């Protein structure tokens, strides 16, 4: 199969376009189409979806009949680490609080780099960044994000009684 694909970028792009277009069309079929004079909510998306499918098909066609560049090496590790770090941050920010969420985000995000070393410099930078963000965004600009979330509130209480 791959032997006949002479332009891989066109192939993958075409596949994505046709996929997105078909998905949108399928969903848009559930919305009222209306008439040309009274466009319903389904009119515009259906037209767009059909155009997208057409563009995708041309791209797919081109993938077999024109010469194009290959898809260069995909950086899976940084991609998954960065995206994963943001998702982890999203999960933690309202439950464990901003401080923990940021620590996880920064640590996991930074580890995506091949230059990353977990040393004193990195820890120092991380603490500084978390402190600065907490001070500026929560204390300064007053964003309603808990610094310490409900998960860790009991811990805070224990620390309080110890003192």
């Amino acid at each position, binding site marked *: 199969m791959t032997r006949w694909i002479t332009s891989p*970028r*066109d192939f993958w*792009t075409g596949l*994505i*376009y046709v996929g*997105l*277009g078909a998905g949108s069309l399928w969903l*848009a079929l559930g*919305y*009222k189409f209306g008439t*040309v*004079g*009274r*466009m*319903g*909510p*389904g009119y*515009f*998306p259906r037209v*767009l979806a059909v*155009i*997208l499918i057409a*563009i*995708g098909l041309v*791209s797919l066609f081109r993938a077999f009949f024109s010469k194009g560049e290959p*898809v*260069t*090496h*995909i*950086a899976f590790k*940084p*991609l998954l680490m*960065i*995206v994963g*770090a*943001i*998702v982890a*941050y*999203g*999960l933690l*920010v*309202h439950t464990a609080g*901003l401080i923990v969420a*940021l620590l996880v*985000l*920064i640590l996991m*995000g*930074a580890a*995506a*780099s*091949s*230059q*990353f070393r977990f040393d004193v410099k990195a820890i120092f*930078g*991380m603490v500084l*960044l978390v402190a600065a*963000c907490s001070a500026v*965004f929560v204390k300064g600009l007053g*964003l309603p*994000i808990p610094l310490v979330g409900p998960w860790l509130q009991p811990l805070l209480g224990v620390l309080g009684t110890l003192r």
Partner: protein
Amino acid sequence: MEVFDGLALGFATALTITNLSYCLLGVFLGTAIGVLPGLGPAATIAILLPATFALPPVTALIMLAGIFYGAQYGGSTTAILVNLPGETSSVVTALDGYQMARQGKAGRALATAAIASFFAGTVCTFLIALFAPPLTEIALKFGPAEYFSLMVLGLIASIVLASGSILHALGMIIIGLLLGVVGTDVNAGTQRFTFGFLELADGIGFVIVAMGIFGIGEIVANLESEGTRDVSIKKVSGLMPTREDWRRMVAPVLRGTALGSVLGILPGGGAALASFGAYALEKKVSRNRAELGKGAIEGVAAPEAANNAGAQMSFIPMLTLGIPANPVMALMIGAMIIQGIQPGPSVIKEQPALFWGVIASMWIGNIMLLVLNLPLIGLWVRMISVPYHFLYPSILAFCSIGVLSLSNSPFDVYLMALFGFLGYVFKKLDCEPAPLLLGFILGPMMEEYLRRALLLSKGDATVLLTRPISATMLFLAGALLLLVLLPTFSKTREEAFKEEAV
């Protein structure tokens, strides 16, 4: 004179202590982030946008404009000092600017860039003040059909300048338009593409899309080719251009400004095209053309004047028609909508202080750039030499907190992660993200204008072709598309972008 009254009002607005300080803050932050390699103006504005939400509209837009100029100038600084253009528009500056830096003339190159930008900025401020009001008069006569066709033209024009495949760019526009459809339909109240998520009922926040694609996607792309960068900067000294430099600078700056002003006003045009054009022009007409590419001051002065002129002139379609010429202007429009201002020709009538205040602040911002940047070059140099793996975690943190400031919902965070992922994938497939963002911003407006145009014509779709202005614009869009599809043109286009990649 209406224009002078307007400018007087503008300066009165822009010269308040609050607005001046936010303009200064914007220019400073914009330059600071703009000098960081791999962060262009669009990314810089996307990252800093949430910081302006709490400000009043005028102040917010003035600050954003300041960030834009700052980032633009910051890009030129990295182009000259380390041969790393932060964005397309400073690619040509790197050709001669970096050579000058290698010859120990970095200071003079930076000063030339600043002076050329300042001159172009001054001229363009007055051009905008002069031409924006009559243009809004014309725009007020536009009906929905004209607006729809104008947007089609704007979208098509944006592809011509996008690097990479034209077909793929067209697809990106359509995906952008489809993303714009997400949310509650204004007429029927139908939930479209929301998958039952309440968070999507108001549509996808454009800050989320911009941050995901330009912020997160860029980070991943930069991490891919890590460690190949050689950032060794010599000490910058001797800022003042010599008398000889001044003499050689004059003509290129004038030519660059003229070319940039013309090209910048075109929809989809702007800074990048202007600087390429200016450099090509110098290659043809300059007396020292033999030196170009080997560290000629003309090679810095002309493109820098042109890109600043182009960048500034792209405010004209944004302020008068409410149509973005590039992703940066799309972000500005998004900021206006968030501030509760409906962009378009009515802005000048309903918000004269805002309209003229932004124009006046452009000039003030340009002075600040000149005054601020030359003494602070030492600081910028130090910022450039910070290794990327220490920088990007902070960008990650700012984006993640910024996205929460929209509606404090983790859903937005996941959405940003998704767009970051998509941004990287599209980049790998040679699909330019800028058309997607333009389509996304214009999508809801286009649907509404099309619906109204067809309602008024009682379902007669030929209305788009029978109204002369609308027909002209559709014809231009079609002609542009044909032009880029012509083999000869696409060859020169490819070559132009290849030159850029070097």
